[in-house]
């Protein structure tokens, strides 16, 4: 028997959390969600109840802090309409078992609540229970009583096969004695935290313990929005990347040749260069080309609005309007600072899931630094890349480098190892002008050119000039023109020289002919005809 026993689990209904918990919450057991204000404890537990109510597991939500009407309203803001489910008897909200107005005159216990839950569980087949802000209630008991109350609730839950969640606030040093037992009484403990780094807030989840099950122990960012909680686990076990696919044209035949055939599908391509080298133009050229072929492209911009970008691209003759109208070109934009990296990721993730693009462009990854920390931007990019690679999506990333020539900083954010192809755009400054050149530094799985190529951004898009194979080094722009002129002049000079020499040769030859003739004539006159060779 190789198969190990798997704990029965209940889906949390929260996207991504089941993956971390390897299946969900432990069935018929109790979990704690611990977190400070604003971490979304109520949303977490409400999603659990709401999801259960919709999927045949009715639940009771008991709030010790909020009123029933506030709960309904708050749930609506994340897209959960509770009232219909309440009417069907699938979801029951109870509030304020111990409101502050209650005068405590002597010992109390929660037998009343147990009786009510017992009764409801029998009547409605309740399978899920949430106690929101249980710590409020426990303030009324000493630790022995607390333990007893919790124990009696757990006994009741077991009797009805109920999976329960308690939410609590974080333990402060002086309150430690009150709560310390809580985490050990339950089977699964999840910690929520809210952190601010460089003015950007991130919500972080960590599973602290899970009796009888494997689980992801790492911290994991999450977001709260319409549709509830969203978690995209960073480290899912095993890479499921698709192999590099067929070639897809970059939109420029000459560039395809440089790349060894074009971009590979499911690959990640980095286009790096200083400002104004035409990164966006190159990406837009690609967008035009693929959209025309009937493929979808998602453009994630951290710099320009859609209208501005489409309009600006008209100047170098790249017309995205048709692609836009056909609905094949989707554009999402937003300043990196406007959201946390997690929300940015979720936004992109949703768009990828819904729009199902064949290609994604990120303009520009250098802006991702502004999402908060270096780490946050790295996570964002790596996870986007993983999402794309899992789905076989080509991912074009633009990176704005600071200095014009350093190859080291091309990749930016240390992601070079996951990049399949790198195109580096450069300025070359010669004789008072700046010219643009590009080189393909890396192109996994393709034979790419090793030559710098000069390119022009014309009114009709980007044009690559033929490779200049003259003397010395590579030349661009005017210098190249001058060199070409010089070459032509030298050629003409040589031609003229040849002509002169040819004329001289003719003159010499005719002189020689003359000499021969006169010599023969003289021999005939002497009567010496023994050597016939002389007459030829």
């Amino acid at each position, binding site marked *: 028997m190789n198969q190990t026993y798997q704990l029965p689990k209940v889906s949390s209904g929260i996207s991504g959390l089941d993956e971390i918990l390897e299946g969900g919450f432990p069935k018929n057991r109790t979990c704690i969600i611990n977190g400070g204000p604003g971490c979304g404890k109520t949303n977490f537990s409400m999603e659990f109840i709401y999801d259960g109510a919709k999927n045949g597991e009715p639940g009771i939500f*008991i709030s010790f802090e909020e009123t029933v009407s506030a709960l309904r309203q708050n749930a609506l803001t994340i897209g959960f309409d509770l009232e219909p489910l309440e009417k069907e008897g699938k979801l029951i909200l*109870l*509030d*304020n*078992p*111990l*409101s502050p*107005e*209650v*005068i*405590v*005159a*002597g*010992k*109390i*216990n*929660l*037998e*009343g*609540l*147990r*009786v*009510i839950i017992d*009764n409801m569980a029998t009547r409605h087949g309740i399978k899920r229970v949430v106690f929101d802000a249980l710590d409020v209630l426990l303030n009324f008991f000493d630790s022995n009583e607390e333990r007893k109350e919790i124990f009696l609730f757990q006994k009741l839950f077991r009797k009805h096969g109920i999976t329960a969640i308690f939410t609590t606030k974080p333990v402060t040093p002086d309150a430690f004695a009150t709560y310390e037992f809580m985490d050990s009484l339950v089977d699964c403990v999840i910690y929520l935290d809210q952190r601010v780094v460089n003015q950007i807030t991130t919500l972080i989840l960590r599973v602290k313990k899970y009796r009888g099950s494997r689980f992801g122990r790492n911290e994991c960012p999450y977001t709260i929005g319409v549709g509830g909680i969203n978690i995209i686990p960073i480290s899912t076990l095993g890479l499921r990347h698709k192999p590099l696919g067929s070639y897809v044209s970059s939109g420029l035949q000459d560039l395809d040749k440089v790349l060894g055939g074009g971009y590979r599908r499911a690959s990640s391509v980095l286009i790096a260069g200083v400002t104004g080298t035409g990164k966006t133009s190159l990406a837009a050229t690609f967008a035009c080309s693929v959209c025309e072929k009937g493929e979808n492209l998602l453009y994630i911009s951290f710099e320009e609005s859609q209208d501005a970008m489409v309009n600006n691209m008209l100047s170098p003759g790249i017309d995205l309007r048709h692609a836009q109208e056909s609905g094949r070109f989707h554009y999402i934009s937003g300043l990196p600072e406007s959201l946390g990296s997690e929300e940015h990721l979720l936004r992109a993730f949703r768009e990828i899931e819904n729009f199902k693009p064949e290609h994604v462009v990120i303009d520009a990854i250098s802006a991702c630094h502004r999402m908060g920390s270096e780490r946050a931007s790295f996570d964002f990019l790596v996870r986007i890349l993983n999402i794309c690679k899992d789905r076989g999506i080509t991912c074009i990333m633009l990176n704005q480098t600071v200095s014009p020539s350093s190859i080291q900083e091309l990749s930016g954010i240390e992601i070079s190892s996951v990049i399949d192809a790198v195109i580096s755009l450069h300025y070359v400054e010669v004789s008072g002008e700046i010219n643009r050149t590009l080189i393909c530094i890396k192109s996994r799985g393709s034979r790419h050119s090793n030559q710098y190529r000069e390119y022009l951004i014309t009114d009709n898009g980007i044009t690559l000039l033929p490779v200049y194979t003259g003397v010395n080094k590579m030349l661009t722009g005017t210098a190249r023109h001058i060199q070409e002129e010089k070459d032509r002049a030298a050629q003409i000079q040589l031609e003229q020289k040849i002509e002169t020499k040819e004329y001289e040769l003719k003159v010499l030859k005719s002189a020689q002919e003359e000499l021969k003739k006169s010599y023969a004539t003289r021999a005939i006159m002497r009567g010496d005809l023994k050597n016939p060779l002389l007459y030829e």
Partner: protein
Amino acid sequence: MKDKKYQFILFVANSQHNSVKAIFNIKQFCKNYLEDDYYLEIVDILNNHDLAVAKGVYITPMLIVDSHHPPSYMAGDLSDANKIKMELLTNK
């Protein structure tokens, strides 16, 4: 019944120890301080949990002073007679 000055509903559960104590204590209190000017209804949640949900009573024992507007809630075994007295005197 409705004409009495003090209207009480006492919620108890399962004839638990402190519920029994609460019943004893409130009866003692009424006898000592309220003479005959009160009406006391005792509800066992086990038999009538709909009323408990309607009144928002989840903790037992719970005494509701229904003659107050809004009604006052007193939780516990009601062993503290002074607290009840204070509540009845200050809140009308």
